[in-house]
Structure formats: structure tokens, C-alpha cells
């Protein structure tokens, strides 16, 4: 079975890359540079990097032990500046869920309308073309000014950035519904509403899900940046805060966690997409 052995070999190569990377990382940050003799007071000011030759960069062991520390107690809450990484990531996921959910509720019906009506499609096209390329973070000042709430502003930014891919894909999927399927509905005298739900929606579902998958990716990218700006809570704020604390181990831990959550979100939608895609 060639495909089987390919999978196996891929796993082996993946593991090898990881081991090499961890090894290189470990060697790079452990004390190889020579230390200079210096005044002990000065040495104390300079910290470990200067006195022991150890890099300020944490090694894989440090990061692993930090991750273990977070895993043991992810949800502690000791005031506004000291919350567990689990709580922070839940804040982020919550914001994304809200902004993204709102975007789904707006983009899918609106995209449907645009896809079904050539008039609306032409009329709204300039606005979509104009607003789509705007970086979501550019909306932030406007959101902060009008909404006057940093948490809601972050949700709004998520909403805005998730909107476009779903809107465009829904409109495209709806307008690309196969003519013969529509003709089936027509010869069966199916009314417009029933046709929308029984023919157009299932026909466009794979394309809509593609849009939703693109959107969730963008939303997860944007939430980190948005939270760095608005502060308070969330994984983006956590990263920024740990940078200010010079806790690089925590920053690296966050990076891994952000990647992991993004991957899970993407896989959920990929699975949903497979559920609605039927070969002909």
C-alpha cells in the first residue's frame, strides 16, 4: 500500500523535523558564548544573559515547563493583569464567535439576495469592492469612537472582517446554481421560498462553507491584533502583556496555543464543508 507508507514516511519526517528544530533551538539558546568578568553589581543589573552566557531567549525546556504550568491551571483569575491562559483564550474565542456569528447572520441572507438578483448584485458591487480591501484594524478607531466600548469594538472588527468572504462566496454560490436544478424546481412549480431552501441553499452550501472557512481564518488572525489594541482580556492582550513583562516563554506558549486553536476552528469548518458537499 503505497499511500499508507507515504503517510508513515511523512509522519517520520515530521517528527524528525521537530526533533532537529528542538535540538537546534536548545543549542542556540544554551550558554555557548563566553562570559566577561565584571563587577558583580553590574552583572546583577545585566541579568543572566550577560553573566552566565545563557541567552535571554528561553529554550524548549523552559517553554515546555511553562506550558505544563499553564496546563495545570489554565483558568485561574487573580485580578485584571493575571488571568490564566485558558481564560484569555476563551475570551478571544467568545469574541470571535460573537462577531463571526453576527457576520454569518448578515452575510448569508444578504449574499443570497445579491446572488439571486442581478440588480442588487450590480448595485452593491461597488460598495463591496471598496470596503473589502480595507484592513479590519482600520475600522478600530471608528468603532471605538462610535461604540465607545473596547470589547464591543473588537467584536465589531471581527464582524467586519468576516463579512466579506462569506458575502462574496454566498452571492457567487447562489448565482452559480446549476440551471438544470432550477429548471427542475420550475417544472415542479416550486415556490420561490421553497426553491431557495430546497434547491439554491443546498447547491450553494459548499461555496458558502468555503467562504465561512476563509472568514474564520481571517477572524482568528484579526482577533489577536485587535486585542493587542483594545487590551483588557483575550489572548492578544495576553501576548502583549507578557511581552511587556519580558516573559518570552509565555509569548511562545501563546503562539503555539493561537496556532492550535486556529487549526481546530479551520478543521471544524472543513468537516462541515465535507458534510454539505455531494459529488454528482
Amino acid at each position, binding site marked *: 500500500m503505497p499511500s499508507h507508507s507515504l503517510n508513515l514516511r511523512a509522519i517520520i519526517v515530521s517528527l524528525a523535523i521537530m526533533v532537529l528544530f528542538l535540538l537546534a533551538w536548545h543549542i542556540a539558546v544554551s550558554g555557548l558564548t563566553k562570559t566577561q568578568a565584571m563587577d558583580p553589581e553590574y552583572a546583577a543589573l545585566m541579568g543572566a544573559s550577560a553573566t552566565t552566557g545563557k541567552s535571554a531567549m528561553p529554550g524548549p525546556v523552559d517553554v515546555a515547563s511553562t506550558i505544563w504550568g499553564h496546563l495545570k491551571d489554565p483558568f485561574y483569575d487573580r485580578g485584571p493583569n493575571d488571568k490564566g491562559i485558558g481564560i484569555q483564550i476563551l475570551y478571544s474565542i467568545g469574541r470571535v464567535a460573537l462577531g463571526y456569528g453576527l457576520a454569518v447572520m448578515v452575510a448569508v441572507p444578504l449574499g443570497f439576495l445579491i446572488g439571486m438578483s442581478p440588480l442588487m448584485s450590480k448595485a452593491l458591487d461597488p460598495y463591496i469592492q471598496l470596503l473589502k480591501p480595507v484592513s479590519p484594524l482600520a475600522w478600530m478607531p471608528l468603532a471605538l469612537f462610535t461604540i465607545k466600548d473596547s470589547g464591543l469594538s473588537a467584536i465589531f472588527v471581527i464582524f467586519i472582517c468576516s463579512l466579506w468572504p462569506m458575502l462574496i462566496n454566498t452571492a457567487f454560490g447562489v448565482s452559480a446554481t*446549476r440551471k438544470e436544478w432550477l*429548471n427542475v424546481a420550475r417544472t*415542479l*412549480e416550486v415556490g420561490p421560498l421553497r426553491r431557495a431552501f430546497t*434547491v439554491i441553499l*443546498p447547491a450553494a*452550501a459548499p461555496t458558502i462553507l468555503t467562504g465561512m472557512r476563509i472568514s474564520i481564518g481571517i477572524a482568528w488572525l484579526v482577533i489577536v491584533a485587535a486585542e493587542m489594541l483594545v487590551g483588557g482580556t483575550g489572548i492578544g492582550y495576553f501576548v502583549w502583556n507578557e511581552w511587556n513583562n519580558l516573559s518570552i516563554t509565555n509569548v511562545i506558549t501563546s503562539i503555539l496555543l493561537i496556532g492550535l486553536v486556529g487549526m481546530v476552528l479551520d478543521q471544524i469548518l472543513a468537516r462541515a464543508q465535507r458534510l454539505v458537499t455531494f459529488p*454528482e
Partner: protein
Amino acid sequence: MNALTPLAEIRAARPAEFPETSRMPSDKFLSIEGIARRYPSPGGKQTTVFENLWLPMRKGEFVCMIGHSGCGKTTVLNILAGLEAPSEGVVIADGKAIEGPSLDRAVIFQGHALLPWRTVLGNVAYAVSSRWRGAAKAEIDERARRAIATVGLAGSENKRPAELSGGMKQRVGIARALAIEPKMLLMDEPFSALDALTRGTLQDEVRRICTETGQTVFMITHDVDESIYLADKIVLMTNGPQAKVAEIVENPLPKDRSRTELHRQPGYYVLRNHLIDFLVSRSKTLRDAPPEGYDQRRPPVVRLTLTEADAAAATVG
């Protein structure tokens, strides 16, 4: 009043000057009355696929239409289905002008057009529930299952179209059309994508079902033998553009013909030769030089007499 009268006048004149169109004989189930189809062509002009096309159909009749590619057969069928509107003229079905698609006229599409996200049962049940709105689910399922069994697909109800062969998909298309008990069946080259063996069995099934139920059928085909086997009348279309109905050929073969014994039937050879002659040469010449006394409103009906080959075949068979 003849075929050379400008169409606009004919249309304006009807029905007062043509009282027979509004007082159809009761067996004239469907009547194509002076339809035309034009498309804009580059240069601001128009191409006329066909114009002033007239064709009557009786109830329970199986009519096949034959003609070269591009002469407008699909266009005629789409107009009958109500999926397209004619540029001029009307089609009267059951005493009423066709204004749009109707559950009375079921279409079997060339590309089967099954909904891939529904199972076989789901596809047929979708049609049934459209026909009998608000019917109980059990009744809808029951009707759908019966139609599926009629086309020999019992046991495949829960498969999706992707799991079916081409012939099975086409069967589902037929079941979906039959399930709504239409007054008329419209088929656009339903078997052209199938292999010869599958095509044969499906032809048998369609013929059995249609003769059993007395279904009125309009079918487009490229296959001369298919039309001889299935049709009561074969409509010959000349080449396009400006295609005409050249002739309506009556099928002289006995009603109880079988597909495999077709070539042993008296009348088979003369009919086959006539159709092939038409496709090879007369489809072109008849458009440009219609015969003396040709009237588009009443296309000539052709009854063939036996040839020697037929007589010989008849004695062998």
C-alpha cells in the same frame, strides 16, 4: 390566408379568423400554433431558429421529433415545458395557452438533473411533495417508492445519485417524472448518453410504462431506431436556421412491436429508409425548396407503403 402571410398579421388575426384554434377537436390535446423563436445576433439583427411552427398532438400519442443538431428541437421542448417563452405564437395544452412550467407536463432532462444532495427516494419524493402539497409524509414516500419500483430501482432508494450508474440516474429521472402523474411527458434525448444495452432496456421500460398508462409523450431523439420503436408519429424537422416541420410520418408498425424483432416487422425498412433519407439529404433541401402546396400550418402527414424488403422481412418474421 397562407403560410406566406406575415406572422404579426396571423397573430393579430387569431382567433377570430381561425375559429378552429379556439374550438379544437377534443382529442387535440396539445397544439403548437405558429410559434417562433428568435435570438439577437451580432450586428443588431436576429437569427430565427424557427418561425410559424404548427404541430398538433393527440392525447395518448407518442411523438418523436427528429432533426439535425441545432435545428431547434430543444427549444421546442423547452417552450412546451414552459421553461422558455416563444417569441411569437402560442402553445395550447388542454385548452389553455401555456404560460409557464406546469406539473401537468413533466420533463425528463437530458442530463438527468438529479439533486445530488438528495437520495433516490428524496429526489422522487421532492417531486411528489411538490405535486401533492401538504400530503402526509407516509403517502409521499409510498408514491415515490411505487414510482421507483416502476422503473426497476427498488432497493436503491437510499442511494445518492453519485452512487448510481448513468442508466440508473436516468431511471430516477423517469421515476421522478412519472411520480407526479403528469398529463404529458417531455423528454429531451433521454438516452443519448447511455450505452446501447442500457438504452435498449430503458426504451423497453419507457414503452411499457407509456402504453400501459396511455401517457402522452413528446420526445426528442437522434436515434432513428429509437423513434421507430417508440413513436406513433415521427416529426421531421428540417435544418436550421428557419427550421420547419417537413413532415409528420405515421408509424406503420403494429402496436405490439418488440425492440429486438423490430427489423422483422413489415414496414420497418420503408420507414427506416424514409427517415434516413430525410436526415441525409431532404432535411436540407426541404427547408429551402418546400414541395408544391406545402403549408406550414398543416405539415404533410406521410403514410408509407410496404417495400419489397419489408414484404420479404414480413414473410421471414
